[in-house]
């Protein structure tokens, strides 16, 4: 990578446009902090927000001894060959974000992981919101426009303290030859909230992930929302899991999946292990090409006082809906696109407007392909 690239602004126009579609801002006045990594090189890391640190993970490990308490605690090192690969690396890469007790960002923090050359990109991120803190993170992950083959392996550990809140919005824009293996988990303490949003409507070779939220305190809450479209030759094996371990904790796992010829396996698993817990899995799939949507929702109740449910529906667009709009003068193509746009429109409660707008924009950008 050329040495003169100091930030997003220094990238060629075409690449900038690609990253913009993943919700990344060149104008840092709209972001509270930023981390930018190209391949394995950390280009930029810093935060302007009071009480919030953004550091390269290698620096944070040197600086803070207490980081050991978080490093490989939510995600086990030996979980699989991908976590083992990341753990083996002599020079760890990734971002460390910590919001000190009570610190809140109005503006989101952004993390950009960009794969430009033909190689493996690995990261290990630690995101901590201490008691009462609030962090909104948007991560854009993309690969260069020219067609490189490669893999991205990302471990992310989220720690949501008592009464704290972390929202993580990840928008992917990979290439057709890139495989992606995120490995994430979140510990959520008493009264904490964790919102995880994932959007990928662009080509990718394979994405495989199954993040877990451990609800470890009374009244903790987690919500996963995934919006994906599998183009031909794309495979998504995605899911999310919530372990409702403490009284009154709750989780909601929502997926909207479209196949235009690719494969989507949508997993979900909620374990109700404590009284007064509530969990719900919702998966809706639209088959618009000869692809596969395989929904595998699992609900596992371990105590009497848990309430778990799931609903899954997979099919094509109802003819009746298309004709309803055609009767208002829309062409068949316009009607279909309008219905698909609506299908993907998941409004996420508790997400700041600016991030909801980024999600909406990512869907709008994909709309011409509907």
């Amino acid at each position: 990578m050329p040495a003169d690239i100091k930030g997003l602004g220094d990238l060629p126009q075409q690449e900038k446009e690609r990253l913009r579609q993943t919700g990344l801002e060149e104008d840092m006045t709209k972001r509270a902090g930023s981390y930018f990594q190209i391949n394995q090189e950390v280009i930029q890391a810093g935060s302007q927000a009071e009480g919030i640190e953004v550091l390269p993970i290698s620096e944070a490990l040197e600086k803070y001894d207490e980081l050991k308490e978080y490093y490989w605690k939510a995600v086990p090192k030996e979980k699989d060959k991908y976590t083992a690969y990341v753990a083996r690396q002599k020079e760890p890469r990734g971002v460390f974000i910590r919001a000190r007790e009570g610190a809140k960002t109005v503006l989101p923090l952004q993390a950009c992981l960009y794969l430009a050359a033909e190689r493996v990109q690995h990261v290990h991120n630690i995101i901590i919101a201490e008691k009462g803190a609030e962090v909104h993170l948007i991560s854009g992950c993309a690969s260069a426009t020219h067609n490189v083959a490669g893999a991205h392996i990302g471990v992310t550990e989220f720690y949501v303290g008592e009464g704290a809140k972390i929202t993580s919005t990840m928008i992917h824009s990979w290439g057709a030859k890139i495989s992606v293996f995120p490995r994430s988990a979140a510990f959520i303490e008493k009264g904490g909230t964790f919102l995880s949003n994932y959007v990928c409507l662009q080509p990718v070779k394979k994405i495989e992930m199954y993040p877990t939220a451990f609800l470890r305190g009374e009244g903790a809450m987690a919500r996963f929302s995934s919006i994906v479209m599998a183009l031909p030759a794309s495979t998504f094996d995605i899911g999310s899991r919530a372990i409702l371990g403490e009284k009154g904790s709750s989780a909601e796992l929502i997926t909207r999946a479209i196949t235009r010829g690719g494969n989507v396996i949508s997993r979900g698993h909620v374990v109700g292990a404590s009284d007064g817990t509530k969990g719900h899995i919702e998966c809706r799939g639209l088959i618009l090409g000869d692809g596969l949507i395989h929904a595998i929702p699992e609900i596992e109740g371990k105590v009497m006082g848990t309430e778990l449910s799931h609903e899954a529906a997979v099919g094509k667009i109802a003819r009746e809906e298309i004709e309803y709009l055609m009767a208002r003068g829309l062409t068949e193509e316009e009607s279909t696109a309008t219905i698909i746009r609506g299908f993907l429109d998941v409004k996420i409660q508790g997400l700041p407007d600016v991030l909801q707008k980024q999600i909406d924009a990512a869907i709008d950008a994909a709309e011409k392909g509907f």
Partner: protein
Amino acid sequence: MLEIEDLHVEVGNKEILHDINLRIEKGETHVLMGPNGSGKSTLLMAIMGFSGPRVTKGLIVFKGKDITDMPVNERAKMGIGIMFQRPPTIAGLKLGKLLNVVKRGNDQTIEDYAKSLNMEALLNRDINRGFSGGEIKRSEVLQLIVQKPDFMLLDEPESGVDLENMALMGRSIAHLLEKDRHLVHREKGGLIITHTGYILDYLDADGGHVLIDGEIRCHGNPREILKVVKRSGYRECLKCPQI
């Protein structure tokens, strides 16, 4: 404006409508009555061109053009509009957004239209999701007001509407059909399915038809037909092709 000649329609390989002949002139509104399951809604759907009913014989002519095989949206462009009895819910599509698409460059704001039907609160809701019976009807009328069709197919506009909103609906539909304009200037027309005839309290219809077992068995003055049906049931219409 609308001519139907010798129309035969099948739904799922079963002939539902047999040899329908109907003619509605420019500026005229007709009502269509008949027992449940007689094929009234099927006729409206066939005129709009929906894929459920299949025309096996006969012609539908609108504004002098054969539209029998025309796609739904082209019929809409030619000026046919429909008020659904049970419209589908479309997840994620806001009523307001659809209205803005349907409006296509017309200056008046959607909010102004919505206000006239007490519908402002529903603009930001997914279309038809959790709408009450009356809200569905008002939403359908609102869509037609924005679409401005020349000829309207109205499937039971009064069903599920409470008394207070019935007046609002009745007046709005009368306005859509230009019943407030002088007869000679009236250009819009429609075909209304009604069971109760309440809609006739708000507008005069120019003709009535009774559909029984897929055939139009009687043409005549709508109020007369209604009176006879109320008194003696639809069987009476079989005896008398002209009331």
